[in-house]
């Protein structure tokens, strides 16, 4: 199917460019780790408070890290007017949306894969067998972030003060994801499974599905040369 093959084509191009330019992944990784350390030593959490506060801090670190990625998302297309070249071509705009969303998702995933175990160690949390569930929640939240983030990143391409505007506009819209991920994480850390946080998980999945669909349908009208 053309949409899928075009998405893969664009994604491979972006990954190749990232491997060569190295402007996003490393900065995001270091920033995420830095935030984690800063939170750790500035919030002197007694052990009984850790389970309640730590998920919020973790997710906050990811939000800011992700915002860095979003600001860079269309950078390759801004040089040499390559966005014009893409829009000129028979490219399905939905493929551009999916490719960029996936790309940011991959970057955040790579950061999360390192930072979550780091976080676990730093906050002296027990039972490593909870990590997979924690990871699942983080990934679902990351999808929501990347989907909305890509749409807004595209729409604010020519805005002034873009690095400030993007988080300003994105974060309030992300509240359902933020609350759902924190609540799920907290429950998992407390009782080892999702339990009564299942409605939150469903909310998270619903959010992802709704805005992913919207993104694919609407991107044609969103992106302009």
């Amino acid at each position: 199917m053309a949409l899928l093959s075009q998405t893969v084509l664009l994604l491979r191009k972006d990954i190749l460019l990232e491997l060569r330019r190295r402007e996003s992944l490393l900065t995001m990784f270091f920033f995420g780790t830095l935030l984690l350390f800063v939170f750790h030593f500035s919030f002197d959490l007694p052990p009984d408070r850790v389970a309640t506060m730590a998920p919020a801090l973790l997710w906050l670190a990811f939000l800011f890290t992700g915002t860095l990625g979003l600001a860079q998302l269309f950078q390759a297309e801004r040089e040499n007017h390559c966005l014009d070249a893409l829009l000129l071509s028979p490219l399905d705009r939905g493929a551009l949306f999916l490719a960029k969303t996936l790309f940011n998702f991959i970057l955040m995933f790579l950061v999360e894969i390192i930072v979550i175990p780091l976080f676990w160690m730093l906050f002296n949390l027990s039972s490593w067998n909870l990590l997979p569930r924690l990871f699942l929640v983080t990934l679902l939240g990351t999808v929501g972030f990347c989907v909305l983030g890509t749409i807004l990143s595209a729409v604010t391409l020519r805005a002034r003060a873009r690095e400030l505007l993007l988080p300003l506009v994105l974060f309030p819209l992300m509240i359902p994801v933020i609350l759902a991920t924190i609540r799920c994480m907290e429950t998992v850390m407390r009782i080892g499974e999702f339990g009564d946080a299942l409605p939150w998980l469903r909310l998270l999945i619903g959010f992802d599905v709704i805005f992913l669909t919207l993104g694919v349908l609407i991107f044609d009208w969103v992106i302009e040369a």
Partner: protein
Amino acid sequence: MQIAVRKLAKAYGFRWALRDLNLELQPGDFVALLGPNGAGKTTFLKLLAGLIEPTQGSILFDGAVLRSSDAVRRRQVGLLVPADHLYDHLTVQENLKFFAALYGKSDASEQVERALAEIDLLERRADFVADLSSGMRCRLSIAKWQMLDPGLLLLDEPYGVLDGPGIDMLEAFLIGHCTRGNIVIMASHHVARALKLCSRAIILHRGHLTFNEPRQDPWPGFDAAFGDFLPHGESWRS
């Protein structure tokens, strides 16, 4: 492919860039798009390419408007901007392969090789585009569009960065392209060369189409129309 431009107009904020443009083009036409700076040439090319929307009027390709979702028609339109539309950190070869795949040409390795050979960039195929001079980049763009073979090829000032051999390559390509029944519209300040190649010349001035004639030899009408836009004391016959 037939192109009809009807009452085309484009405004940016408080200023008209193009006003009341009417034009009909047939397969095989080579149009020299001339005019002073700020006349609206680039705007016109972008409208034809479908990159911007007209404020008024329409452009019809075989009777239909070019939509962003119309992949078939989009494949038929190309825009050559000398140093742009190439990824700096992909190699020469990777750029061509990428665009070939984007335009639906799967497995284009042979075509890429051939295209690179024709513009004499074969030994630089593994170099990053960022390391090429602007003249080389322009050649790469020529190779790209040679490979993609659009029914309508638009060019925005290609002569600026090309050297002698480069110019020969460009002109051979453009003439061949038209002979195969495609349409070329080239905006340029190199009037003499453009007029030698074209089958029709149009002049834009302050957004209006002030001259539109098929090529003749001699061409008193053109001399009269273009006289005001030349540097002091010069003739366009170089």
